[in-house]
């Protein structure tokens, strides 16, 4: 392995070491949730180790995203990694973030565009992305993903690689679903041509049957999160997303995890033993959490008795895939990835898409208040805040918009976020 290749795996190895440490810590200090946390950690380790194996042994590897129908990759026996995953720092505060942001400041990129996507460009520029066989980027739900992937496509390091981007249209009608399904078929053709792997439709049926079960279990679990008190804190709610949408989608081990999650949730409801005690506020956090504030959920729980019952990634109105034919599978995967996947569902298309989610979640989960952190990269979201505020007023829940950079704590500090939330809770009489 040459130095360049070694460097491209540096952060992957670091994350492997970090997750091995998490696994060891959980094993050393087992509690009633260890059996749910361990499989999540092992899943990340398995994915990272497979990435290393692909690079080391010259096996096909794809760089892609969760709403490009991960079932297709599994059915083609193709491993993939998410281009921007290292920004999330392996589940804790990213130890490299400050040095990366400082390096980013020197690059010819506007500071007013999404920091996460700028980081993706930095990772490639700095040689920190494993070189894939092919790239399948996103081009929705925002201008940022189009712009960032056009940069990657033309970057000196990757301009010789094959790229194919499925194009999700702006609408969600049957015509749009058919069009996007056709894009997924073209993506399969592209992957077959450039990776040498073949689509196995029998395997796709198995994978979709399995993710169907997982999505159904996820939906069932979300109905448990609607209980008062909520059986689990934020982490496990958010984790539901990763197993259905990450590399290895359709793994039967994941189905077992969702089952175990439900069993644990039901037990906690039955025994009135919620993971977060003394819950006083049921919160919808409408986005992901700032990665520089890993203790946000614990702080909310301990300081205010506020439980993040739901967020943008934990809500799963997923379409079951009809596995009776190749056509129905591609059609329904198109529908699932166009209309159901987080962010693409809400931010692609008209502003009402945000409002449907907010109203459904607030009503189904007995939410007390909605907080939108307002990431600086989400221009469509920031132009939709007045709609969200009006919707919350209409359905009678307090609403807070903060305004942060989810990836750069220099933009809005932890103290500022705490202060805004505390004043909001106090002024709305929440948590008292």
């Amino acid at each position, binding site marked *: 392995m040459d130095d360049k290749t070694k460097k491209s795996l540096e952060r992957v190895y670091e994350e492997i070491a970090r997750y091995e440490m998490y696994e060891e810590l959980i094993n050393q200090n087992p509690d009633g949730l260890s059996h749910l946390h361990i499989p999540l950690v092992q899943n990340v380790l398995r994915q990272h180790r497979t990435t290393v194996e692909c690079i080391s042994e010259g096996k096909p590897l794809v760089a892609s995203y969760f709403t490009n129908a991960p079932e297709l990759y599994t059915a083609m026996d193709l491993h993939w990694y998410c281009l921007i995953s290292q920004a999330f720092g392996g589940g804790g505060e990213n130890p490299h973030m400050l040095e990366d942001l400082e390096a980013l400041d020197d*690059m*010819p*990129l*506007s500071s*007013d*565009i*999404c920091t996460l*996507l700028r980081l993706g*460009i930095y990772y490639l520029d700095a040689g920190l992305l494993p070189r894939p066989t092919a790239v399948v*980027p996103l*081009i*929705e739900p*925002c*201008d*940022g993903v*189009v*712009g*960032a*992937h*056009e*940069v990657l*496509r*033309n*970057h*000196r390091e990757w301009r010789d690689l094959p*790229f194919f*981007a499925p*194009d999700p*249209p*702006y*609408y969600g009608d049957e*015509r*749009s679903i058919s*069009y996007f399904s*056709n*894009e997924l078929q*073209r993506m399969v053709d592209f992957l077959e041509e450039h990776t040498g792997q073949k689509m196995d439709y029998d395997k796709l049926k198995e994978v979709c049957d399995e993710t169907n079960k997982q999505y159904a279990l996820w939906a069932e679990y979300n109905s448990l999160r609607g209980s008062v008190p909520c059986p689990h804190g934020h982490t496990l709610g958010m984790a539901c997303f990763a197993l259905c949408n990450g590399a290895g989608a359709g793994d039967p081990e994941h189905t077992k995890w969702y089952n175990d999650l439900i069993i644990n949730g039901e037990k906690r409801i039955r025994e009135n033993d919620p993971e977060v005690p003394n819950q006083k506020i049921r919160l919808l956090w409408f986005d992901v959490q700032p990665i520089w504030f890993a203790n946000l959920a614990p702080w909310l729980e301990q300081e205010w008795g506020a439980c993040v019952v739901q967020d943008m990634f934990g809500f799963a109105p997923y379409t079951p895939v009809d596995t009776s034919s190749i056509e129905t599978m591609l059609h329904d995967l198109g529908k699932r990835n166009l209309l159901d996947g987080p962010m693409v569902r809400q931010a692609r298309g*008209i*502003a*009402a898409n945000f409002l449907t989610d907010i109203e459904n979640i607030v009503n189904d989960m007995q939410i007390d208040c909605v907080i939108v952190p*307002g990431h*600086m*990269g989400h*221009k*469509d979201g*920031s*132009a*939709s*805040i*007045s*709609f969200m505020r009006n919707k919350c007023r209409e359905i009678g829940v307090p609403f807070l918009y903060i*305004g942060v950079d989810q990836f750069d704590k220099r933009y809005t500090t932890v103290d500022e976020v705490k202060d805004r939330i505390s004043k909001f809770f106090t002024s709305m009489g929440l948590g008292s």
Partner: protein
Amino acid sequence: MDTDINSKAFQEFSRTANTIINPEIEKWKENGGQVMGYFCSSFPEELVTAAGLLPFRMRATGSTETDLADACFSSINCSFPRHCFNEALKGSYDFLDGLVVYNSCDSTRRIYDHWIDKLKTPYVQILSIPRKAEDPQVEWCRDEFHNLKKSLENHFKVNITDEKISDAVKLHNETRKLLKQLYQYKKPDNPKVTGAETLAIVVACTAMPKTVCNSLLKELINDLENVPDRGHAGARLMVIGGELDNPGYLEIIEAQGCQVVTDSLCFGTRTFWKTIDESESDPLYALAKYYVQERPSCPRVYGMYEQRSGHVKQMIEEFNVEAVILEKLNFCDPWGFEMFTIKNTFDDWGIPLLMLDRDYPLSGTGQLKTRIQAFLESMGGAS
């Protein structure tokens, strides 16, 4: 606008570019005509013309505040849609009989949502124009234009035949050819028309009937033959970037001792350098192919950087450009990312590049002057 061009046609273009509503629109309305507003340059205005309506490209000329729109947009949204929507809330676009928005960018597409929520314009539509430019995207776009045609027919009680679309394509192509002809006067060492002047003309052409516009362009081109030598204008620059409809911005640049001899702008050569295929038997397909694949795209389109930079390179060579200015609006994601690749491309080409951020209203002119002067000095001074 300060100008040496002694031409009534130019005066009319200049007046039109300086206001939102203009005498041609007023005349059109007085005669019972209807006006259709649209945002951004991938909209098929030919369909509006074929429907017998007047297409009007949205801008917020003269706007200085966003106090009304601030309730709908935030400070991290680009100032162009904020100013446009502010003007809409003030009533400046009350003359519109309809508006079509497409998913051009994240801030502008939200104008559709706010418009239908806050304003009473009788016809408001949104289009889904693909974000990439392969053949299935042309087919999608053709269907999208077909649906728009049907929608216009239903609402405005008109019949838009293929023949009418073909006629409209010819009419709009004539505008494109005349604008291209106009730009030939910018090629000599001593150009007969400045960058600010051509920007005013291109902007004006989006706000008046194309028949009038074509007639004025012919008159202007004739007048330019008699324009005396305007003297050596300094370094030959090109301006590239996104939405820029204020000729005053280019006036300030040119006042520093240089000449903007060509551009790749949303109100610029990207809209007219190529023409629509008039021989295609399905005019809707010809429109879709043009707007998706053939015209130089803006960075909202994935996979077309080579085409965009190819257009810039062609302009540089044809117009003997010495240096390039990239202007972008603050909080513009498409150009904010594109500038990374542009910077690398210009490094490879060895052509000086200055990247400037700006807000929609003309502001910070002192800083702008200083940066242009420093840039020209770094090139060896205004020649």
